[in-house]
């Protein structure tokens, strides 16, 4: 057991040292504007001479903020309203000085406002709003039967739905949470009537939506800024500060439209802005389908094989102990069962405070997740050995260790193998969620595809993930057949 722990510790420290050896890391949230701003930061830092990595679309505000605090990322774009109303909620921050001081207490610096205010708004289809005579948020009070669909983060935030509904006294019958990009499709198809808007969304014009007047001035300003760790060298901070006042609302809406409506590559669009605004020329090549596919496959296989390998090394001894030591049986089976009941997405996010973002937390989460099937099948495989066989083995006068190695484990192999198969197939699926915390893999194109409403991209991740799961299943079936 001691040896196993040492090996694990080695694996973890090796992986985390790889993660730490990375250059400056920029993070961005799940939506296009934030990804574009992330590209701008990365390209400016590169232009200043810093190697950078951009971990795109990592998640919501909480994940990015925690990743910044833990040092998993060095920079990410955010908005002043989000900082004061969500991150520093309840601290009564009234001025920029207050905000700078409060962030500084966390070791976080903030750049000047980039030049546009991407405020929240509630939006409706223009035709419907006019037909119902709705112009302000207050007007919604008279229409509780409208269907509201909000982005998941908006549903939770103090400056989001909980605050708006309280301030305006709204109690609609039908409110659902969904992805922001999907909400636009929902309102276009008529499945929802009211959604949350970012004022720089190009879809407002595209779908002919109208932003309802915030007649009680509930929403604060959301001026875009970069948040960065104060350990960043001054030259790097200067490379971020150059954007202060340099990105106005028109420019931002144009970039958003180029990516979301014209389906152009976000890094290329950011590169064009860098050239026209600062004269910075950088090669932003769009990686082709094949190199991208190969990279995603490698990432995915790495996630699955390392987590599964560690699970096998740990779970089989756990299963043996559970079968042999009555005092440990319910403890070991219980612990691995409880791990399995945690939703995989939640388990992934729970790993962030412990292991930061990237491959490491994903691997640890997948490792924990794959324990149960192997532990349980090892345990039951050993327990199912017929009593006469065990009696004969003991009657031969063989020591217990030899009986375990030559008789019990070989006889339990079919059961253990089917446990490993379950874990492997499951891991291939869970690994697609790894992209949410920056681990790459087939989840990456799926995530980008959802953001850009691009079905081809979604399939680019979904099909190989399904095929890989079938391949793994087939491979194990073949091995099982061979052994019979």
């Amino acid at each position, binding site marked *: 057991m001691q040896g196993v722990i040492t090996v694990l510790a080695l694996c973890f420290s090796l992986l985390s040292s790889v993660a730490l050896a990375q250059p400056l890391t920029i993070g961005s949230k799940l939506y296009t504007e934030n990804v574009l701003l992330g590209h701008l930061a990365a390209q400016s830092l590169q232009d200043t001479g810093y190697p950078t990595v951009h971990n795109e679309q990592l998640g919501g505000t909480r994940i990015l903020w925690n990743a910044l605090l833990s040092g998993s990322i060095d920079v990410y774009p955010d908005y002043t309203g989000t900082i004061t109303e969500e991150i520093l909620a309840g601290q009564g921050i009234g001025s920029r000085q207050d905000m700078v001081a409060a962030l500084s207490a966390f070791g976080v610096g903030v750049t000047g406002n980039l030049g546009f205010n991407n405020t929240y708004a509630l939006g409706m289809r223009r035709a419907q709003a006019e037909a119902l005579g709705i112009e302000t948020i207050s007007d919604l009070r008279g229409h509780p039967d409208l269907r509201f669909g909000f982005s998941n983060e908006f549903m939770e935030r103090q400056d989001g739905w909980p605050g708006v509904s309280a301030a305006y006294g709204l109690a609609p019958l039908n409110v659902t949470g969904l992805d922001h990009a999907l909400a636009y499709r929902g309102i276009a198809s008529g499945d929802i009537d009211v959604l949350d808007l970012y004022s720089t969304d190009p879809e407002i014009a595209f779908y002919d939506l109208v932003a309802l007047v915030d007649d009680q001035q509930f929403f604060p300003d959301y001026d875009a800024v970069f948040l960065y760790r104060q350990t960043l060298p001054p030259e790097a901070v200067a490379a971020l500060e150059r954007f202060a006042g340099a990105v106005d609302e028109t420019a931002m809406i144009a970039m958003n439209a180029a990516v979301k409506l014209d389906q152009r590559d976000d890094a290329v669009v950011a590169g064009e802005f860098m050239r026209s605004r600062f004269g910075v020329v950088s090669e932003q090549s769009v990686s082709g389908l094949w190199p991208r596919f190969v990279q995603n496959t490698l990432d995915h296989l790495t996630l699955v094989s390392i987590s599964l390998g560690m699970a096998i090394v740990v779970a089989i001894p756990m299963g043996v102990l559970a079968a042999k030591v009555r005092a440990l049986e319910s403890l070991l089976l219980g612990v691995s069962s409880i791990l399995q009941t945690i939703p995989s997405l939640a388990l992934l996010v729970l790993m962030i405070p412990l292991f930061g973002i990237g491959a490491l937390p994903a691997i640890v989460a997948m490792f924990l997740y794959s324990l149960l099937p192997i532990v349980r099948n090892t345990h039951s495989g050993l327990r199912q050995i017929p009593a006469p*066989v065990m*009696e004969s083995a003991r009657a031969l006068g063989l020591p217990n260790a030899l009986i375990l190695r030559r008789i019990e484990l070989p006889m339990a192999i079919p059961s253990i193998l089917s446990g490993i198969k379950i874990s492997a197939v499951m891991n291939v699926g869970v690994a697609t969620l790894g992209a949410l915390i920056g681990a790459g893999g087939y989840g990456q194109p799926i995530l980008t595809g959802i953001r850009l409403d691009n079905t081809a991209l979604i399939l680019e991740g979904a099909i190989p993930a399904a095929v890989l799961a079938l391949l793994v299943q087939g491979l194990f079936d073949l091995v099982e057949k061979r052994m019979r």
Partner: protein
Amino acid sequence: MIAIQDVSKVYGQTTVLAEISLTVPAGTTLSLIGPSGCGKSTLLRVVMGLITADAGQVAIDSEVMTPHNRLALRQRMGYVIQSGGLFPHLTAHDNLTLVTRYLGWPAEQECRRIGELCSLTGIDQDLLARRPGKLSGGQAQRISLMRALMLDPPVLLMDEPLGAIDPLVRYELQNDLRSIFRKLGKTVLLVTHDLGEAAFLGDRIALMQEGRVIQDGPVRELLHNPATAFVEQFVTAQRSPLQDI
């Protein structure tokens, strides 16, 4: 010699063995017989050291079994059970050599011993490459016997060794077993529920009832001089093929 002295075993409220004392002199066969649940198989497991008795002791060739010498003593006893005793994932050959490998026998010694046992038990060497699932019931029991005899132990313990074998093969195996016991001079403790088999293979018969030995002696004594009404009932409850015709 097997010496069982005042052995008792209680499971919960049930007394399975009640102060049993029995001796099997060297080179003789004792048949343990009795109805199901009388404790005969439990007694065999106590002798093998697979179950620890609550009281009393067992000695093999006057060496008393303790937790310390249990593994070593087991290697001086061969054990054959009704069925399922062979390891299904190993070939017959590997079933035979599991112990000798562990004890570090040289290959040629192993090979010679297997040859001797094949001719003793009438097993074709070609069968040894098969796994137990590919052997007939009779072949599997012969291999089980070979495995029990690999180390040439002075003592054999057999628990219904022919219980699951069809009558013709069983008849043949009974003959073979008797000649093997005589030829090798083993001390044998045999559990069976068949009085005919007990009488044919055993020099003496011990009849058990509810954890006690009711009568212990040659078969004639049980037939002509039953100690209790139960013994009389048990020995006359054997059906002859001509009985009802």
